[in-house]
């Protein structure tokens, strides 16, 4: 017995394929905002209506509405940008944005602070750079992730090609985007099937995310995706096919145990030529089976837990006309980036830069935006974005290495020494994110500094330990897959999660709640001390905490909330 569809479902239904009243809304120059329903629809076009929360307090006394502005998320498959495209985005950020580019945890760029009157100019400039923002957000398939360096090996190239193919196959077909933002002619849409053959009028029940991983690196956190493909590499280095993982997702809500983060289940193996068909089947099953009445229960992860993995697999096989083989063995070793220079099969060189929390701006002592621009100006091999909010200067000829590295160093783009900072990631949160309960991007660097003092004391300064912070439980920086997860609860207050696997295969556990800065350091210090003393050879911090019995192990989403808290007196 189907329940009432959620408000968003009615908005989509009535939107005439995502048009709504956006065109009119843009013409009203006296407000920087748009009407509520359009604010939902505009996400499908890759934008969010936000307001500068730092300014909220003063606005009404000054007789001004909230400081509205839009966040734009670019659609970039696998994080691969040409140098020219980087330069275009850099210019757009300086002309229309807040003079920063924000590299995201899904390998794309977000521009913040674009006011309504500049939206069209901005989107036209993005279009001119052969880029788009369509479906970067919304209840559709988002940016498809994959290892950011196709040049590294044949397998990486195959992974990238698959990411691009999936992205292209699952992109919305509605002409609304061209009409509204690029002054395209209104093309009269015919039948549902014609306009949106895969999605139909109401698209998906919720956002949908795909990632393609090439072992041993799990840099994309494949298990955090609704749908994941894991390359199974043949001895000759080509891809024999893909393990298919389904039902990953991080989001949950404090105090609502029926919501939980979940790592994807590997449900089988498919041949390369079947991958796109399998993906489409997964999408359409979710389209038809997903919960459209409760958005907090609409992601694929709940669909699978509700129907059971076997039933789900069967339906996917039926729709795809493909029988999945048993999953093939694979091993991941880490989720982080390989900083510094790497050399690929083709003899090209690639420099992975370090960008704290992905925020590329010009700050005192660290003119990163300028630095990236200078690099992109003298280097045409491409600028790639990593799943850990970093960037890669790709395809550098040996002779240019020194010059590029010098530019990077001069502009504060080289990685730090600290093992914690190298593996740190924070979501955006304040001031732009409307859902933030606490600071994240602006706070994590300070927390890391405080912890680095303790790590040094325990002689752990150089050890790689993954720490991730988010300003709310939605999990944008995948904090539940971090050895140390710090999740905002309220202003200045955080929940601490511990014990995730270094390779991204196991989530962490709630260890302590409502901690303020000093409490976080105080809670971690003795555990770090114990780790320094009692760890076994090559034992990671997360693994240690479980073996030593400090925290209970999380096996999957459904037991994520179980056995919270310290399991052993410190």
């Amino acid at each position, binding site marked *: 017995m189907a329940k009432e569809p959620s408000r968003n479902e009615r908005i989509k239904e009535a939107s005439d394929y995502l048009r709504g009243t956006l065109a009119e809304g843009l013409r009203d*120059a*006296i*407000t920087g905002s748009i009407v509520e329903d359009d604010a939902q629809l505009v996400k499908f076009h890759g934008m969010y209506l936000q307001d500068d929360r730092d300014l909220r307090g003063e606005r009404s006394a000054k*007789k*001004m*509405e909230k*400081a509205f502005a839009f966040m734009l998320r670019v659609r970039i498959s696998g994080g691969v940008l040409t140098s020219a495209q980087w330069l275009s985005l850099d210019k757009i950020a300086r002309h229309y944005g807040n003079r920063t580019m924000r590299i995201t945890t899904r390998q794309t760029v977000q521009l913040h602070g674009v*006011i309504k009157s500049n939206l069209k*100019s901005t989107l036209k400039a993005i279009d001119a750079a052969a880029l788009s923002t369509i479906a970067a957000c919304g209840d559709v398939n988002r940016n498809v992730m994959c290892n950011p360096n196709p040049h590294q090996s044949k397998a990486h190239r195959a992974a990238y090609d698959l990411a691009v193919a999936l992205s292209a196959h699952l992109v919305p077909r509605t002409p609304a985007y061209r009409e509204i933002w690029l002054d395209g002619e209104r093309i009269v849409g015919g039948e549902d099937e014609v306009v949106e053959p895969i999605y139909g009028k109401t698209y998906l029940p919720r956002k949908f995310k795909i990632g393609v991983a090439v072992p041993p690196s799990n840099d994309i956190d494949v298990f955090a995706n609704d749908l994941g493909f894991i390359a199974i590499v043949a001895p000759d280095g080509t891809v024999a096919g893909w393990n298919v993982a389904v039902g990953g997702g991080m989001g949950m809500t404090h105090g609502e145990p029926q919501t939980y983060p979940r790592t994807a289940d590997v449900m089988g193996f498919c041949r390369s030529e079947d991958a796109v068909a399998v993906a489409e089947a997964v999408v359409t099953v979710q389209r038809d089976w997903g919960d459209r009445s409760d958005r907090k229960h609409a992601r694929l992860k709940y669909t699978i837990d509700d129907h059971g993995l076997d039933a789900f697999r069967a339906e996917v096989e039926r729709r795809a006309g493909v029988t999945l083989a048993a999953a093939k063995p694979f091993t991941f070793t880490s989720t982080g980036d390989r900083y510094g220079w790497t050399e690929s099969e083709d003899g090209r060189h690639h420099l992975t830069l370090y960008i704290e929390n992905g925020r590329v701006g010009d700050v005192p002592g660290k003119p990163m935006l300028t630095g990236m621009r200078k690099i992109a100006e003298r280097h045409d091999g491409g600028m790639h974005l990593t799943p850990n909010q970093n960037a890669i200067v790709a395809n550098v000829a040996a002779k240019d290495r020194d010059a590029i590295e010098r530019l990077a160093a001069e502009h504060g783009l080289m990685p730090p020494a600290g093992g914690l900072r190298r593996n740190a990631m924070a979501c955006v949160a304040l001031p732009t994110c409307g859902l933030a309960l606490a600071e994240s991007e602006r706070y994590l660097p300070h927390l890391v500094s405080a912890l680095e003092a303790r790590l040094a004391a325990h002689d752990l300064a150089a050890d790689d330990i993954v720490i991730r912070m988010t300003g709310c439980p939605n999990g944008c920086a995948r904090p539940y897959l971090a050895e140390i997860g710090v999740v905002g609860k309220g202003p200045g207050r955080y929940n601490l999660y511990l014990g995730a696997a270094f390779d991204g295969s196991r989530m962490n556990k709630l260890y302590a709640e409502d901690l303020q800065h000093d409490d976080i350091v105080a809670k971690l210090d003795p555990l770090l001390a114990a780790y320094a003393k009692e760890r076994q050879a090559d034992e990671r911090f997360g693994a240690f905490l479980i073996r030593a019995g400090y925290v209970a192990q999380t096996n999957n989403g459904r037991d994520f909330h179980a056995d919270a808290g310290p399991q052993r007196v410190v």
Partner: protein
Amino acid sequence: RTAPFAEEEIEILNRVVGTANPLQRAWLAGFLAGIDAQSGHARAEPAAPPRAAEPITIVFASESGNSERLAADMAKLARKRGLKPAVVDMADLEVASLPASKRLVVIAATWGEGEPPARAASAYAGLMGEGAPRLDGVEFAVLALGDTAYVEFCAIGKAIDARLEALGGKRVAERADLDLDFAEPAARWIESAVTALAPKTDAASPSGAPSGGRVIEVDFGAAAEPNLGPFEAEVTAHVDLNSSRSDKETIHLELAFDGKAPAYNPGDSLDLHVHNDPAYVDALLQAAGLGSDASLRDELIASRDVTTLSLKTVENYAGATGHQYVKALLETGEARDWIAGRQLIDLIAHFPIAISAEQLRALTRPLAPRAYSIASSRREVGEEAHLLVSAVRYQSHGRERAGVASGYVAERLKKGAHVRVKLRPNKHFALPAPERDIIMVGPGTGIAPFRAFVQERRAVSATGKSWLFFGDRNFTHDFLYQLEWQDALNDGALTRMDVAFSRDQPEKIYVQDRLWERRRELVEWLETGAHFYVCGDAKAMAKDVRATLVRAYADVKALPPDAAERAVVELERGKRYLQDVY
């Protein structure tokens, strides 16, 4: 006795008419005329002196009303002296008709950087141009108003004075060039000028009235000057309307008057009396070596203009101190450039020399009040008046400078404090009948009077349409009164609004660009009788807006440039293109 009334009748008349407002006066006039018409009596000439009086034409070129008021004063005196004055706004002057007036007085202010008041511009051009008529046999006198702070001090008065002579006129009174503190010198000049122009035969009886008889001035036409104040006001609100991220600071001031607020109308301004920055005055006294003089300090802070540096000031300084370098500066003619962007303190700090309190005092002129457009309508705010003050701050010659008045308002005037204001009526910037459409162009603080307009039109539920153009730097940080405009658009007090924010995008966009984009509707509104108002920056904006309107006419109506220009001049003459710029 010329007035056909008995003493007590006169008393009564004065009591009734003296206090009557313009409406009542007008009614009275009509009423009497009506009676005459019925009873067939010849209508009495109430204002006329005993016998055929000599006509005198008093032309004024005014922007903010000073010259206009002086013209009225002069007319009163002239009438007393047996002349028959006709007061003419230069805006309406037919230059060709000048030779007809045998007695001509021009009272002219200078604006912009040595330019004529906007309204007077075309007549002024006519007077200066080839086509100007000969004025042989015309007796004239010119009074120039200005501000020594400007390099082009009284430029317009001077030019007119010279021009009238060149056209053959006979100067009967020496021109006076008056600074901001013009009240007494102006009165003296008027006295002497009227004497010089009055018919010589009357010289015996300066009152211009037959001996013994008492002339009563029962002038049915003239309006009663409202009470201009000064009024004491309390600051009940003091809000910087720009966001904390803005590089601008624009203060919304709410002034409450215990008892009654001045009887202002939308379009009027208030003169704000302020104090100098004590810190500046201390620095000045230090530089002058008069640091210990407390009473001088108080006086300078409260009532002297201690910032303005004019050529006159430099001359006085050289004269008073005999400072060699300062003299040299004047002799080489470098002084003119040197004073640009500098203030009195720069002169004294740069050329220090022993100077007495009296000498320093003598270098300053009285501190003049500053005018601010009233941003409210009494119909909406009652016994209050709101002002919108933009803080003037800049850096020049290595010093941080702040405007005297706006700095006072922004930095030292606090909620609960008291200020003194005077009303500055401006009947040339008033709203039309409620059913008329209006177009308002007011970027920056130019928006102030239009807030009053919109409040007023809402209060009287005006049926005319209204269209507002606003502009500033950034939409997010400088959109003055944004929420109020949103309300006005919702409740219909405002029909439409267009905005131009210059720094939101790489290319600059100003209000005139929006006017141009909307030129079709704009001309359409004007063709159907809309009144066009411009307020704010005089230097660039007002000129650009006018030029844009001319281009708009040319483009929309396919007119040659001169015809388009004429179309706009027509609007100005028809009092439908009105501006209050500064």
